[in-house]
């Protein structure tokens, strides 16, 4: 194993019109890490995810993944290198049954090379591998759930389906854009061990989250964004004690005093 980090984001910036959505953000993800990205609404979390995964081309800076300079690549090429993402607004193929949703990623060049999660695609047909992946991710195999239309699945399953779609590529890094949002407490409770299982499989994760309690249980390192700048980075419990972070979430003391 090389000592180089799996993903290096080096000072990337992005402006939309006059708005600086991201300015000079850097981060590193090592193999096996779960890195959290938090920040108030509009702080540039999703733009950061989009710039890494190629859906937005950063104006400046570099993204290096696994030794490849992937800055400005097309999303499908980045995914082909093993960096996939989920979407905050779930994007299943609504007109297909759940397990058929996985046929599409399993049909991609990368999945044909790697065989999908755990390489099952090299042994079985795509339908079987799709059902295998869904079973691992919490779709009960003997039930009718994997065969239901994606349009009729509840949010919890759709979030899992998003993750399953990533796993079908046998990725090295998954960027999860708010996988916990919109889930009930029990759904979240069953999602946590799933993420831990992925980490044990050797998959690194970047988790963009608003659910801080769940995130802190999982991640060993957290990055805080505000107004497109990285304001803090460090161990979860310590980061929240920092003055800058508190100000970002609750406003500065002077501001608060003005209202009082």
């Amino acid at each position, binding site marked *: 194993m090389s000592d180089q980090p799996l993903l290096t984001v080096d000072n990337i910036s992005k402006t939309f019109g006059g708005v600086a959505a991201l300015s000079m953000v850097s981060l590193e993800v090592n193999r096996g890490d779960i890195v959290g990205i938090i920040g108030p609404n509009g702080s540039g979390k999703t733009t950061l995810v989009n710039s890494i*995964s190629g*859906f937005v081309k950063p104006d400046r800076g570099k993204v290096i993944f696994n030794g490849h300079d992937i800055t400005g690549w*097309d*999303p*499908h*090429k980045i*995914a*082909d290198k093993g960096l*996939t*993402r989920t*979407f905050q607004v779930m*994007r*299943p*193929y*609504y*007109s*297909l049954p759940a397990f*058929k949703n996985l*046929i*599409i*990623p399993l*049909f*991609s*060049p*990368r*999945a044909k090379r790697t065989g999908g999660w755990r390489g099952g695609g090299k042994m079985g047909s*795509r339908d079987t591998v799709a059902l295998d992946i869904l079973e691992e991710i919490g779709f009960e195999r003997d039930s009718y759930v994997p065969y239901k239309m994606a349009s009729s699945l509840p949010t919890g399953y759709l979030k899992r389906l998003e993750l399953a*779609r*990533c796993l*079908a*590529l046998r990725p090295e890094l998954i960027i999860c854009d708010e996988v916990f949002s919109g889930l009930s407490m029990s759904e979240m409770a069953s999602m946590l061990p799933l993420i831990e299982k992925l980490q044990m499989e050797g998959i690194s994760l970047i988790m963009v989250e608003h659910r801080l309690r769940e995130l802190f249980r999982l991640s060993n390192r957290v990055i805080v964004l505000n107004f497109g700048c990285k304001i803090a980075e460090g161990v979860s419990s310590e980061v929240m004690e920092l003055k800058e972070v508190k100000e970002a979430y609750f406003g500065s003391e002077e501001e608060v005093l003005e209202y009082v």
Partner: protein
Amino acid sequence: MAVDQKDRRKERIDRGIKVRSDGVYAISSWLEISYLVAPRLLFIVGLLAAPILLLPVPYWQKVLSIICIYSLLAISFDFLANYVGLVSLGGGFYIGVGAYVAALLNMKFNIPIFVTIPVATVVGAAICTVVFLPCLPLRGVYFAIVSLMFPLLAARVIEALDIFGGTDGIVGVDGFSSTWIEQYLLIIAVLAAVFFLRRMITEDVGLVFSGVKDNDQAVKASGINITKYKALGIFIASSLGCFGGAVLSHIYMWAGLSQFALDFSIIPIAATVIGGGGTLIGPVIGCLILVPVSELLRDFGTLRIAVYAIVLTLFIVYKSEGIMVYASRKYEQFERWVSI
């Protein structure tokens, strides 16, 4: 009567479910097999028998050829719009490119007719794909607008530069040795297109196509190059159109500017609306209705456009799902009154 209605209700039983869910049940009895096969056989045998049935009326035999060409375009429109998610109004362009390629090969290089048609199909489709390539990132109505522009553009370019015979077109292209060959070539092409596309959309490639239609972002995130698949879709669709165009130029023994006409872009859409989008057979049925209607109304001159518009409006307002979707639903369901 009122009492009657109170005491009974309409019960719907989906008889198709058994047959549609698993192929296994379909072969369990002759009744089931015939239930599955009958409508398909009607379509295939009906189309194959049409030239023989129309033998006494040669004029309508000619119309049948035109129906088939429009059907090919309508199938390609339906495939692109409902399975790849590209609403292409470029039907006129496909026909024109196919017609010109076939005519040029035939006139300039003296290539016989049974080589020009397949070559025009492949080369024409390649030309269409390359021309459409820059527009593939566009979606929805923007793609439709650009694709509508191509037939107009091509006709004006040929006119202005006075190439390929200019406004006169290319005259003196070889005709078919017999109308039978011409008609059966077209009918078999329509059947093959329907069969091939209906098979393909259920294969894994077809799922990728429908993924591109449903949401292309997720397909990108799955490591699949969507431009490649959109281009493949355009290639398949335009090869149908170019085939039709090549045959058309040999039927008329002429390739000219009117083969870039808007009719070829618009009528397939109308046929798809009437026949039922997303069924791939519906568009053929739509053409079987629309093209003869427009032939019958030929005597009324421009008034036929009005009749045409009324028919289309009625369909969109009252049966927007189309004939094929409606018919297959009725076919697959029993309806009966039961007393409560």
